[in-house]
């Protein structure tokens, strides 16, 4: 058959078109509806979600399950002595026969006891400071292994919590007082008075306040390791210019001195008063309230006469009087919502006359030689003198599998000589009377440090970690917000009781 060129082209086009149409038809067959696509996508999404949850659950279980103790079954040979009764010539005779026999027994592999300690750092090189302490312990106790783990503070809280929950916590830890109370309340810590040689520890010359504050609900949960206290730092030049001779001894005197030195027109403020919750715990408010007899439950350390550690007396006349005094103090303070750091900056800029400080502020005096600073004890109130206090404790977790070794290690590191080694490196205050740190007794700022050491005995420790924000809010509302004192104290007391209850503390 003859075809013209045009006919050939047409045939070719037709064939191509047929091929394309076939392809399109074939593709249409494979095409899926939108409903089908969404349905499949949803199934994949749900499947993936379920898979993630299951995988996460399995991973969490594997990560948190307690370590398995593997027992080995061993076959050993041992000589056995046994008495056999035989008959010799018809007469029963007893002979002793020794023979070897093979016995099968279950045995736990012998493991050297190991003590693990977790601690947040107080020095730039805590492992380095602890190395000779651990070495000294091991030389006295070669059969005990020790692992000292320095955990950054921002991770330690979560590490301890997850460790307690999962059964993988360390044997012994350094715990700030507030953490110790929390874990004691959870029943996670060993009651130390139940351990042998506890009286030996108790008989050591510990300062009474840190020792007492190591107790919770009648049990001793920690051995004091170091202490923190707050005193009032004042600017001697500002005092002298205003003709003030002696620092104030009580709150009324503090107001009198404040009146004399307060001169906002010249940029001089008598008192440095930060706002917010952190201000409550380490600055004026808690010291003032305790000294008026206004207590919040779960406060420890120096007792308030006639008031129990778990009594709520904030919403009483004592609280009203205390906060009235606080409000009077605010009249002679700098204004603005300043943090502790910002108030400290103003003090070292020579603008503030008096401000409470923890001891870590003392080295700043060397950076500001133009400021002549002195310190005085927190003023006394109607029921006594109090200050913000805190101690660090060595506590043992009940989960330890080597209680004897751990207790031995805890006693060793809290012994006078070993405790001193750490305190010398950290510049923190001892919780016992028989440790003298040269820097604090003979150093450049020895007189200032001695006031801090004296203040340790006035310390009262509160569970600010759970209700501190509430107290800070109360302080702000009353002094800066102009709120009614009585009703604000009542609201705060109710909120605190609710928080304590919700936190699982049984008073």
């Amino acid at each position, binding site marked *: 058959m003859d075809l013209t060129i045009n006919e050939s082209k047409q045939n070719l086009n037709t064939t191509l078109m047929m091929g394309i149409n076939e392809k399109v038809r074939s593709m249409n067959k494979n095409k899926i509806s939108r409903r089908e696509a969404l349905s*499949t*996508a949803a199934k994949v*999404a749900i499947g*993936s979600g379920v898979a993630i949850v299951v995988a996460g659950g399995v991973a969490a279980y594997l990560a948190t399950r307690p370590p398995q103790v593997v027992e080995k079954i061993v076959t050993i040979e041992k000589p056995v002595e046994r008495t056999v009764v035989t008959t010799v010539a018809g007469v029963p005779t007893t002979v002793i026969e020794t023979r070897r026999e093979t016995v099968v027994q279950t045995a736990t592999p012998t493991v050297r006891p190991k003590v693990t300690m977790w601690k947040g750092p107080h020095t730039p090189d805590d492992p380095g400071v602890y190395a000779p302490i651990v070495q000294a312990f091991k030389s006295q106790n070669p059969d005990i292994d020790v692992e000292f783990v320095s955990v950054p503070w921002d991770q330690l809280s979560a590490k301890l919590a997850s460790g307690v*929950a999962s059964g993988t916590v360390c044997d012994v830890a350094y715990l700030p007082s507030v953490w110790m109370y929390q874990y004691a309340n959870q029943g996670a810590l060993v009651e130390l008075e139940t351990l042998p040689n506890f009286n030996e520890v108790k008989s050591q010359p510990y300062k009474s306040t840190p020792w007492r504050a190591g107790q919770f609900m009648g049990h001793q949960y920690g051995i004091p390791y170091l202490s923190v206290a707050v005193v009032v730092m004042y600017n001697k030049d500002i005092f002298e210019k205003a003709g003030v001779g002696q620092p104030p001894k009580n709150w009324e005197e503090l107001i009198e001195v404040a009146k004399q030195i307060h001169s906002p027109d010249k940029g001089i403020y008598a008192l440095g008063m930060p*706002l917010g919750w952190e201000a409550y715990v380490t600055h004026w408010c808690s010291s003032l309230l305790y000294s008026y007899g206004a207590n919040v439950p779960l406060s420890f350390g120096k007792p308030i006469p006639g008031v129990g550690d778990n009594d709520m007396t904030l919403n009483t006349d004592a609280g009203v009087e205390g906060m009235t005094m606080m409000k009077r103090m605010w009249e002679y303070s700098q204004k*603005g919502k300043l943090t502790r750091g910002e108030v400290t900056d*103003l003090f070292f800029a020579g603008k503030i006359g008096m401000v409470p400080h923890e001891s870590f502020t003392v080295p700043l005096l060397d950076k500001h030689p133009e400021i002549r600073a002195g310190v005085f004890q927190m003023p006394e109130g109607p029921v006594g003198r109090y200050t913000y206090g805190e101690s660090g404790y060595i506590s043992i977790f009940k989960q330890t599998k080597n209680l004897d070794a751990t207790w031995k290690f805890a006693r060793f590191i809290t012994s006078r000589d070993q405790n001193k080694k750490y305190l010398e490196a950290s510049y923190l205050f001892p919780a016992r009377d028989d440790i003298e740190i040269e820097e604090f007794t003979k150093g450049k700022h020895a007189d200032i440090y001695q006031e801090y050491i004296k203040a340790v005995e006035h310390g009262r420790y509160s569970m600010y970690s759970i209700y501190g924000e509430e107290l800070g809010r109360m302080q702000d509302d009353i002094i800066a*917000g102009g709120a009614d004192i009585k009703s604000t104290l009542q609201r705060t007391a109710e909120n605190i009781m609710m928080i304590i209850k*919700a936190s699982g503390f049984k008073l």
Partner: protein
Amino acid sequence: MRSKFITYLIFFGPISSFISGLLFVPIIANIWYSFHRWQGVGSEPIFVGLENYIALFSDSDFLLTLFNVARYVSFILPLVVLVPLFLAVTFQQDDKWSKIVRSVVIFPFAFSMVVEGVLWRWVYQPHVGPASLLKIDIIGNYATAIYGVAFVAFWQAMGFYMYMFLAGIGSIDTALYESAKIDGASSLQIFRYITLPLLKPTLAFVVTMALIWNIQTFDPVFVVTHGGPGFSTLTPVFYVYWLAFNRQDIGYASTVAVILLIITLIIASISLKLFQRGE
């Protein structure tokens, strides 16, 4: 069908896992925890049914946070719409000064709120900062602190919103402007009858996003005032954080988060509906 499933698994699997893992699972877990009393790691969640939800409606602190955030949003919303819109319209050209102004305005958006918050704390300091010259105490005052925080958030986000408006303006056909000019329309008339109506989708986006972001504000409050003085700048999201990490009340914090999610969704939906109706 099997090959199709495998195809979908390959294409949808990773993103579905990502979304499920990071979005849906936490939301579902959050709702689950909202029916429990839970102190966090180390304690067991206890089922309490609707107890947290009932407590929430009589919680004066939660109501206070809603009041605070209402003041915050009502202050910042007009600012983040009007000021960036004005800047975008004024500095939309490609001349040197417009470029400089646009660069300066976007500058704060490039920095972390933590850095800027610290800077603004110093600005607001009534004793040594610039505010001391004016003898005003903005963030130490219960009445003004929330506005001080809102201004910091506005200052940071202003450049972002300006660029949103610039993108919207850039998508308008220039022929409309040219014909309006030929017809003798003034600049104000051009803005009123061309730019503004055609920017409605951008406006809807800006208003809705500004509402969602600012109802959920946290970082400027955390850095500048930490919720204080008192609770005068405590916002709902900060309250969630405060409940969870200060009171260790994860269950109740989850309840607040669920209610906040619902409130945000309702407000964002209303905003979008209003703009859709306008179209």
